[in-house]
């Protein structure tokens, strides 16, 4: 009874550690691994952005910023969102700069949820949504999405999961881990249901710039949706700024004010160095960003044709930097496949079930890797499948 472990809240104890963590330890112990298991760009932040950060430090920008973030940054975010999505947010009270989208997610759950409120989480998805809901005393309800729908959320599948306690819907497109996207029409098909059931949408659009077919569409831009959407984005993926931890959330002034209150007491403000760098990214980062996106697109096509050529069934991912092929032809489940592939061929990919139970039977392959490594990885996976019963 005196064990320190007993002091830990049962709620926290109830949350399983991320499935990725376990696999990370295994990969870290293996030598000569080609990793397609990362979740970030293979570029470092463009030099002009790093340079602007040095310059701001030289000039002594080392202090707190206002809770909501530097006014210039919020203004640039407003300009960016208006030009990209056609949605207008007031820098004064509708935008909050956060420590990555991760903080914005946490704030949103804490601000919106009462005990046992339900958060609808389309899966497979990024690992934080369900634990975030539970940590805010809510309940995560998994909404399955399927390869046959290219992992779009359909109104039919959503409706099946809605209950009187449903309060929040998470939309995360372009999607990690599947690479699925939702077009404007796909999103329009959901809005009447969202409005009918009075849901708030948390729209995690961190991969928005990494859209390879058509333009990224935000649900916030659809009629009647702006006030009930919390649009979240950041700099990690588009500008290769993962370690800077700068994100933002935009939405109705009352929700943003409530989020700012929690943010003020827990974080105070996002680091000023990152905010200065983010301003530079928005003002002058488009060219470098387009170059990186074009390069991901080349590699996307390369890995997709490679995976298909070794007999893996894979729908065409149109966003982010992941492929999510089915590995059922191997007769192995996701975890067995990934462990054996790592031990036998030294290629690291992430088991699909780490992103929700209906990710089982799939693996996530990140193509933010060099062409040489992608080709080597495909060759090794081909050898592996020869031994493990590919079609």
């Amino acid at each position: 009874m005196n064990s320190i472990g007993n002091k830990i809240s049962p709620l926290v104890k109830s949350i399983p550690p991320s499935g990725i963590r376990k696999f990370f330890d295994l990969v870290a112990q293996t030598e000569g691994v080609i990793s397609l298991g990362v979740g970030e760009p293979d570029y470092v932040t463009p030099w002009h952005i790093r340079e602007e950060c040095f310059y701001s430090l030289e000039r002594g920008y080392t202090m707190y910023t206002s809770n909501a973030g530097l006014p210039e940054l919020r203004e640039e975010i407003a300009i960016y969102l208006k030009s990209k999505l056609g949605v207008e947010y007031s820098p004064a009270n509708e935008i909050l700069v956060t420590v990555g989208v991760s903080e914005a997610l946490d704030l949103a759950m804490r601000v919106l949820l009462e005990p046992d409120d339900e958060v609808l989480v389309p899966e497979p998805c990024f690992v934080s949504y369900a634990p975030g809901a539970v940590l805010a005393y809510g309940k995560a309800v998994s909404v399955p999405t399927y390869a046959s729908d290219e992992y779009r959320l359909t109104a039919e599948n959503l409706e099946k999961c809605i209950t009187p306690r449903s309060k929040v819907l998470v939309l995360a497109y372009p999607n990690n881990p599947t690479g699925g996207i939702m077009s404007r029409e796909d999103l329009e098909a959901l809005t009447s249901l969202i409005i009918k059931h009075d849901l708030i949408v948390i729209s995690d659009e961190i991969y928005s710039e990494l859209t390879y077919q058509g333009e990224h569409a935000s649900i916030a831009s659809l009629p009647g949706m702006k006030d009930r959407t919390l649009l979240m984005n950041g700099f990690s993926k588009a500008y290769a700024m993962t370690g800077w931890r700068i994100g933002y959330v935009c939405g109705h002034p009352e929700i943003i004010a409530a989020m700012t209150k929690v943010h003020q007491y827990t974080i105070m403000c996002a680091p000023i160095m990152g905010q200065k760098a983010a301003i530079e990214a928005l003002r002058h980062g488009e060219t470098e960003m387009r170059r990186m996106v074009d390069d991901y697109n080349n590699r996307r096509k390369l890995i997709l044709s490679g995976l298909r050529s070794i007999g893996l069934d894979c729908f065409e991912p149109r966003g982010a930097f992941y492929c999510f092929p089915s590995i059922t032809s191997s007769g192995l489940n996701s975890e067995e496949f990934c462990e054996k592939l790592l031990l036998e061929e030294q290629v690291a990919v992430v088991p699909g079930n780490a992103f929700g139970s209906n990710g089982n039977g799939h693996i996530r392959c990140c193509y933010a890797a060099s062409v040489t490594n992608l080709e080597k990885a495909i060759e090794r996976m081909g050898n592996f499948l020869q031994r493990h019963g590919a079609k």
Partner: protein
Amino acid sequence: MNLENRILKLITADAKLSNKTIASMLEVDEAIVEATIKKLEADNVILGYKTVIDWEKIGADGVTAMIDVKVSPEREVGFNRVAERICRFPEVRSVSLMSGTYDLSVVVTGETMKDISWFVSHRLSTLEQVQSTTTHFILKRYKHDDFVFEDPQEDKRLVVSP
């Protein structure tokens, strides 16, 4: 961007990309990539393929100089004739017509500084159109043809992340 430009963009960054890789990236047949590259070679759009080497790493000596050359242009042909003459010397790596205070920028390599000064005094300065030369020896290279020398390119990312 048309296919020729898309192919050129890829092989400018990496000449060793195989036709198969290029074909996958651009979603066209390998045979089309092969034919397009052959045509670009035949049309002298692609002049050749070279390797960027850090010779210092293997202890190879050698000297490179950039020479600013002032020349008198000639009637009808301007700077072209003298530029073409300078191009023909095998020790000349590149020749460009410049705006500004001099006319031609000539890059020359040799085994020793003496080789280069001999080239300048005996070959270059003696051309009748050449009025003057200023020779700058390269002391150290930091970046060349997009490659930064001494730039550790290791992947610093976590091997697996969400």
